[in-house]
């Protein structure tokens, strides 16, 4: 496992901090998160979108159907999400960058394709705009219920996944480019776990003028020779395999050899597992994207991601105004989980949009003392600034979250 040196300076750690400085020529728009996700994909040279419309990700499909033909790409409205993600896998195997977008009910159908794409190291980007669940839930209300499902996106174990979550329309744009880059470098599907608020919200958005000039976009390369699957290796930047060039590459659902032949052999199974897990675990330092605030002196740290992190961050600032030494951690990389962000021995208040408690369990595991990790779960709507400030104040002063309506604090 790579170790990560966490910056205690306030601010953002992400590649787009640098990108933003370099891109000065462009246009400022008032646009939706779905628009930013679409344009980020086009900028990253995504040329295939295959998916099934679902609220609140539908607008991504609509924008893609308009934009892709303009840049020589293809929009496929698939018969279901199983077909959508598999068609993306096919397109990616054929040499085109691909993306699909969905929400919880469709995401559930994608696990079949996730397993196939993860095992065969097929780069692509999957957007899940989470809404409150279970099942259809409320289509127009945000949720954060797929934190664990996005990690365990297929049955069978023996793999790691990369999951990123933006918390503004602008960040959705840059993060989508980053997701495509990581998909290429790590040869794996990268999931953008966003939510109904970020998807539907309209906000200030800067779009660079010339996508072709973005030198930080990693172009698609092709692996045209053996080994097609570097089993037992944790190497990054292995170019993806290409079907259609007569290299003899084999892609299947089975445990594979370096050639891609199906094999029932323990050594091959182990070597494949080593590759799928460690190409990510050994490079977590290259996957760390996060935002922190007030970690220098914080006695209580609020943890939140996605849309929810916006009101939580303001709640932290409000608590500080009231004299509470409050800090803020916003993981952007949700998986692999950045344990190092929670190394500080202090109290934590984890705010997430579900009542069962998902992110909080990982913070409990990573923090020095899980008894100091508190939960503020809310469902279908964001935490208010007042709730967060009250929670932080309560934990700082009496080591407990005060009773608040619609807030759950029990994890077990």
């Amino acid at each position, binding site marked *: 496992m790579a170790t990560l040196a966490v910056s205690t300076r306030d601010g953002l750690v992400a590649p787009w901090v640098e990108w933003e400085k370099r891109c000065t020529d462009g246009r400022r728009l008032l646009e939706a998160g779905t628009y930013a996700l679409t344009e980020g994909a086009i900028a990253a040279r995504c040329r295939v979108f295959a998916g099934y419309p679902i609220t609140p990700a539908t607008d991504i499909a609509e924008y893609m159907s308009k934009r892709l033909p303009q840049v020589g790409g293809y929009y496929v409205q698939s018969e279901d999400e199983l077909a959508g993600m598999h068609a993306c896998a*096919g397109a990616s*195997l054929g040499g085109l960058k691909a993306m699909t977008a969905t929400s919880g009910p469709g995401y559930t159908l994608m696990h079949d394709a996730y397993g196939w794409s993860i095992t065969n190291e097929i780069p692509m980007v999957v957007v899940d705009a989470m809404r409150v669940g279970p099942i259809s839930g409320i289509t127009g209300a945000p949720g954060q219920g797929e934190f664990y499902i996005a990690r365990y996106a297929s049955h069978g174990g023996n793999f790691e996944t990369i999951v990123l979550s933006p918390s503004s329309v602008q960040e959705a744009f840059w993060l989508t480019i980053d997701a495509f880059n990581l998909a290429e470098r790590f040869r794996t599907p990268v999931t953008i776990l966003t939510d109904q608020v970020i998807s539907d919200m309209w906000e200030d958005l800067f779009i660079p003028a010339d996508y072709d000039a973005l030198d930080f976009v990693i172009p698609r390369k092709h692996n045209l020779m053996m080994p097609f699957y570097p089993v037992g290796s944790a190497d990054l930047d292995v170019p993806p395999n290409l079907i*259609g060039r007569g290299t*003899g590459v084999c892609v299947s659902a089975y445990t594979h050899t370096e050639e891609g032949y*199906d094999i029932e052999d323990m050594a091959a199974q182990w070597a494949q597992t080593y590759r799928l897990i460690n190409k990510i675990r050994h490079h977590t330092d290259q996957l760390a994207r996060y935002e922190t605030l007030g970690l220098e002196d914080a006695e209580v740290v609020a943890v939140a991601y996605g849309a929810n992190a916006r009101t939580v961050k303001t709640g932290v600032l409000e608590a500080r105004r009231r004299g509470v030494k409050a800090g803020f951690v916003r993981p952007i990389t949700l998986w692999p989980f950045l344990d190092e962000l929670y190394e500080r021995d202090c109290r934590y208040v984890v705010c997430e949009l579900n009542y069962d408690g998902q992110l909080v369990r990982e913070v409990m595991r990573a923090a020095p003392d899980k008894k100091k990790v508190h939960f503020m779960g809310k469902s279908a709507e964001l935490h208010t600034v007042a709730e967060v400030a009250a929670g932080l104040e309560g934990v700082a002063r009496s080591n407990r979250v005060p009773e608040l309506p619609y807030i759950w604090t029990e994890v077990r």
Partner: protein
Amino acid sequence: MNKLAAKYLRPSQIPTKACHGCGIGMIENWLLQAIDELGFKQENVIFGTGIGCVGRQTFATWGGDNFGATHGRALAVATGLKLAQPDKKYLIVVGDGDAASIGTSHLIHAARRNLGVTVICEDNMGYESTGGQFSPTTPANYVTNSSPYGMAEPGFDPCDVVKAAGATFVAETTATQWHQTVKIVKKALQNDGFSFVHVRFPCNENFGAYALGTRDTLKNLEWIYEHTQGRKPDGSETDFTWETGIKHDVSNSRPEFSKIMRDMNARVRADMAAKAAAAAGDDKTRDDGHGTH
């Protein structure tokens, strides 16, 4: 290894793990004959398959590029792959589970789109790699390990399904009809659109053993042959008849899916260029709106 196998298949991957007397290898040899007679180059044919007897026994035997999708999803993968690699020939060799059950929605929509692939549905009339359960193509009343009192559900004919959905070439044949099958597959591969070839073949270990009461390959082949003729050797009628041959052939009569997409793109981009030229001539200060940068 015969000459065709030596020319097109991977020596390390054959013989496959197929059971004694399985028809899959024989049918694959006929597919090779069709490819050979058409003169297709190995690197220009992409071989796709799924899960089950047919997927497991054919995956990675083809000397060119191969993919073995999750169960039923070969056509979903092929839909994306065809957009990226439109000039290749696609041989999608799947079983009755892949085509007629778990992946039927993809089959229907691939036919509707006229996706340029040739689907060979090798049908052993049940799920034999899991030990012999019925599938939607198991004949009525036949005993399998999940229909111990006889297949009670009505089945369906996948040829009817894909024809109704818009397939441009549809044919049915069996493992007892060598020359007919080769001719059909050659025609199927020459259709720049969705071709579907349904090939019934015997399974000795399960369907033969439980439904027909014999593991004898010749007897099982004979049972299939009788049902293509509608008559048993003693002259009596069989319980049902399979009509084999070409069921529907409107090859190359409507545009192939990836071509529709490419043509649309060309139209969109020509319109954009025309508008940009007109705007440049009309009013050099006008912004053409978002979404076109």
